[in-house]
Each structure stands twice: as structure tokens, then as C-alpha cells.
């Protein structure tokens, strides 16, 4: 394989006494759609800005296509970015906005015009070239920002929550289009989002950020089905995974006073763990952990049941007709194959 399109090694960034990034190592393959996913303040945007050259890392190196760009200015890296606010130039027309990167690179006028038309056509705003950004809808502004980013055919495409200012319906549409555009241009894209649905649906691979560290890198399937830490497990999924403290011993787990037989976990020995289980793997059964139904929430075909197990809240996603009555006493079973076991102390997956 050729050199990674993006390679971050040991990136540390401090803002005064606060460590924003505590050693980031990442590799993005050429042509890959790679997301940086994490809650706000986890360092994903800082990482993107360091990639863009808008901020400089205190330690570590940034390589693009194998070339060390750590100390290069933004304009000297072959990188384009779409900002959350779009950052369109309000005093220029849409056409002038799109042409700006070419103008700054000294592209001849004739070439510039055809490139602007092509980029605008790709995002279907070629009929709006004479307008000013202030006269565009939010979706059109977003497209204009995209066109400005793709017009000069950068090696790397950076997107900082580009969909967050769109309404829900437009967001889903644009998401699909964004992916199609990236595929068509065959350009490497690094995408920052706190929206897991976006990250899971768009990415070839993604990195989950927590507190200035990358806690897991993998395909959306890997990250979703095998979260590396209890924090990732609690962050992903809607609603997120249920997490229950348990005591593991001799192939059984003690959960809120009830013993569950889990022979497959015998190898883990006796230890304190956190059991994770997705709502869809929780079932109401004749036997199992006693629970009280606190609420039932219908969502079209499915419904969510909030259960209290001891002092814990467990959410179950079910479908079918038998909906348990609120405040009724039930027993729940956790699908054995769907259990995630995390060490209680370290939070790491076992």
C-alpha cells in the first residue's frame, strides 16, 4: 500500500494548563472517508485544525501523503476545509467565492471559469453563481462551501460538522450526497462530527475521541459491535448500551442480586466487571433478573421499555404486540451472545 494519506504521530496540544490532545496517533488511507467522532470537547476539532495547519501541535508530527507538514502553513498543505459555519465570504458572489482558492493559486481566468462551473454543477448550484451568500438558503450556502472546497481538487478534504446547521431532513439528504461526492472525486476525507449516526453511516473507518485521546479506531461495524471501552459503549447507539455493574465468578455473574449463568465467561475468573448490553438484546422472559417497568415509549413498530433493575435503569427495545404494563414486575433475560464485558477498573473490553 502507498503511504497513508494522513498520518498523525504523537500529537499533543495544550491550551495553557489544559491538555486538549494527549498523544494522538492516526492513519488514514488514500481515498478513505474517515470520521473523528466524539462528544464535544473531546479533541476532534482540534485534531482537524492541526491537520489543516490552523493550529500547531506542541508535540508530534503531521504527515500528508508521507510528507512532513507539521510546520507548514495552511495554504502550503494541499488541503481544503468546509467549516461548520461555512465561512463564505459575504462580500463576494457565489461564483467569486468558489473561484477564490483558484484566484489565490494564480490559475488563469479561462481555466478558472470552467473549474468554477464544474464545481458548482457538481453540487447543483450552477444557477446561483451571481448571488451573494446572504441570498442563499442554508442548504445552498452549504453547497457553496462544498464547491469552494472541491474546486481546486485538494488531496485532502476536511469537514468540520458541515451538516450540523441544516434541518433534519436536509441533513440526511446531504449526507448521502456528501458520500457520493467523495466517492466520485476519490478524495481522502476527514470528517468531524459528534453525531454518531452521521459517523456510522458515512465513514469507511472512524476514530472515537474521548478526553483528548483516541480510544478506538475501526470500521463502523467494528466500533459499534465491539466497543473497546465502556465509554465508547456508553456513547454509541441510540439509545446507548445499557451498562450494569456485576461481579463475575465461576462462569456466572451477580447482577443486582441475581445470579446469571454465563459459562462462556469462566475464563475471565473472579473480578468486578461492567456488563454492557444493547437495548435490542434485552428481553422480557419467564425467568431472569427481576425488574420493574417504569415507562413504555412507542416508536412506530418498535417500543422502548424503561426498566428499573435494582437501582439501575435498563432500556429494552422490543417489537410485537405484548406491551408490558407500567409498574408491572417482570423478569428480563440478557442475550448471552450480545453481552459486552468491560473491566470495572480500567473500563477496557475483556
Amino acid at each position, binding site marked *: 500500500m502507498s503511504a497513508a494519506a494522513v498520518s498523525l504521530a504523537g500529537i499533543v496540544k495544550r491550551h495553557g494548563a489544559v491538555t486538549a490532545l494527549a498523544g494522538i496517533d492516526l492513519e488514514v488511507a488514500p481515498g478513505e472517508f474517515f470520521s473523528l467522532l466524539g462528544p464535544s470537547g473531546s479533541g476532534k476539532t482540534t485534531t482537524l485544525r492541526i491537520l489543516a495547519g*490552523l493550529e500547531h501541535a506542541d508535540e508530534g508530527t503531521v504527515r500528508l501523503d508521507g510528507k512532513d507538514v507539521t510546520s507548514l502553513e495552511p495554504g502550503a498543505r494541499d488541503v481544503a476545509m468546509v*467549516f461548520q459555519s461555512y465561512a463564505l465570504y459575504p462580500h463576494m458572489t457565489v461564483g467569486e467565492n468558489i473561484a477564490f*482558492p483558484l484566484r489565490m493559486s494564480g490559475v488563469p481566468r479561462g481555466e478558472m471559469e470552467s473549474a468554477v462551473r464544474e464545481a458548482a454543477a457538481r453540487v447543483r448550484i450552477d444557477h446561483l453563481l451571481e448571488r451573494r451568500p446572504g441570498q442563499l438558503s442554508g442548504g445552498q450556502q452549504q453547497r457553496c462551501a462544498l464547491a*469552494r472546497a472541491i474546486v481546486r481538487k485538494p488531496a485532502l478534504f476536511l469537514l468540520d460538522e458541515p451538516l450540523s446547521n441544516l434541518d433534519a431532513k436536509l441533513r440526511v439528504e446531504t449526507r448521502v450526497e456528501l458520500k457520493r461526492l467523495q466517492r466520485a472525486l476519490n478524495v481522502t476525507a476527514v470528517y468531524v462530527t459528534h453525531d454518531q449516526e452521521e459517523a456510522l453511516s458515512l465513514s469507511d473507518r472512524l476514530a472515537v475521541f474521548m478526553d483528548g485521546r483516541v480510544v478506538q479506531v475501526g470500521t463502523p461495524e467494528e466500533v459499534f459491535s465491539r466497543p473497546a471501552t465502556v465509554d465508547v459503549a456508553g456513547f454509541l447507539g441510540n439509545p446507548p448500551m445499557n451498562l450494569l455493574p456485576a461481579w463475575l465468578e465461576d462462569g456466572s455473574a451477580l447482577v443486582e442480586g441475581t445470579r446469571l449463568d454465563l459459562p462462556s465467561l469462566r475464563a475471565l475468573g473472579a473480578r468486578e466487571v461492567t456488563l454492557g448490553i444493547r437495548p435490542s438484546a434485552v428481553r422480557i422472559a419467564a425467568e431472569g433478573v427481576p425488574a420493574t417497568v417504569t415507562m413504555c415509549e412507542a416508536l412506530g413498530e418498535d417500543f422502548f421499555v424503561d426498566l428499573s433493575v435494582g437501582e439501575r435503569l435498563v432500556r429494552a427495545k422490543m417489537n410485537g404486540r405484548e406491551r408490558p404494563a407500567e409498574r408491572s414486575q417482570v423478569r428480563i433475560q440478557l442475550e448471552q451472545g450480545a453481552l459486552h464485558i468491560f473491566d470495572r477498573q480500567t473500563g477496557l473490553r475483556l
Partner: protein
Amino acid sequence: MKASVLRSSVLLAFAVAMMVVWVFPVAWGLVTSLKTERDVLAYPPTVVFDPTAANYQDVFSGSASIVPNLISSLIVSGLTTALTMLFAIPAAYALARLDLPWKRGAGFWVLATQMLPPVGLVIPYFLLLRGVGWTDTYQGLVLVYLTFALPFAIWLLVSYFEEIPREMEEAALLDRAGRLRALWHVVLPQAKGGIAVTVIFVFLNSWNEFLFAVVLGGNTVRTVTVAMFNFISLEQTQWARLAAAAMVGMAPVIALGLIAQKHIVKGLTVGAVKGGGRR
């Protein structure tokens, strides 16, 4: 309904009163400039007289002409404004944008120079300029005006630059503009209104300045404000000519004010809102 009528009539009365206070001296000056010296001194003052353009002829030509002084004022104010903007724009941009460790302190000292009463500086400046042989020179007076105009302009411009989203410049940097071209193509066009306001304020302040012009100027550099003052002498005060000169000297100020009215009002509100914490 009744209350609102009362309210608006009170406001109207107040506005009229203010107008009278502000407009009367100008109107009286205009009337005086069209009188003969004799009519000016008539007591009780008369509003019925034969208007004459003689005072205007006198201030435009002949021994009492203020045309050379208008040119002097134009050179001083023009140079002051141009140099102020040349230095203030980059300085204000740096203060607004760069994360410089001494930014706060620098911002304060820029403003602190405005806190000194100007009259306390007249003598020191005179001695300094005399020391380098720059009294009664354009460079001397412009240099002194810069010490007042620059801090003021920087302070005003910083608030305009701070209003422009950082991301816009970052986008320009990524679009390969570099700092200077980002400033030129992206920041300055958006700060146009603020720059216009600053230009006007700086120009008007130096155009209307009298104290330093009279002390640090002389026969070579005599601005229009000083020339007007010279119509008042021990022997006599030429009120009509003085009034005519005042009208002429005021004309560029009024013209600029009318041109820039829109910007000025907006500029004042920006200063008011953002300056609350800054002052």
C-alpha cells in the same frame, strides 16, 4: 393614545430645543458672514440687512485669503489620515487576531495615551519639535497628530476587526491566500464601514484641531483654524470675515459628514456596545 400623543409632543419639543441649541450658532454664523462689519456691530442686532458676498471674496482672495490655510489643513489632515490608516489597520488587526502574550497590556497602553489632557503635552511637544528643528513644519505637526490619531484609530478598528468571524480568515488561509492577502481580500472589504468611520473621525479631528496647530505651527504651516483665530486681534475683531472663514472651513466637515452619515451612526453604535467593556 393620549399618553402617546403627549409623549411624542414632549419628545418633539425636546428635539426642537436641541436643534435650536445646535443649529443657532451655525445659523447665526451664516447670517453674520453675509453682513458688513457695520451691520454685525449694530445694536440691537438686526436680521434685516443687505446681504453681501464681500466677506467671502475677502477670505478667498486678497490679503485675508484663507485659501493657503485650507491647503495647509488639507495637507496636514490628509497626511495624518493616510499615515494613521497605514499603521492603524495592521496594528488593530494584530491586536484583534493574533494571540500575542502582551496583547492586553498593549491594548491598554494604546488607550492610555488618550487619557492625558492634550494641553499638558503642548509644551513638551513644542520643546521636542524645536529640538529637532521641526516646529512650523508639516512633518512636525503631522507627527504630533499621529500620536493622538493612531491610538484612537487602532482602538476603533479593533472592535470592527473583532466582529469579523475568525473562520472566514481561516478559510482564506486554507484557500492559499496567506495572511496579507487574507487581510486584503477578505478582512478589509468586510471592515469597510469601520474603516470609513475611522478615516472620517481622524480627518475631522485633525481638521478641527486648534491648540497644537497654533503652538506648533507658524507662518509656513498655518491651518484654517489658526487662520480664523487671526481675525481676532488686539485692535479689532473682524467678525464678518471670521464668520465667513468659519463657514468655508466647516464646508468639508459637513460634506464628509453627509457622505458618511450612514457609516458614522453605525460606527458610533459599534463603539458603544463593544466599547462598554473595553473602555
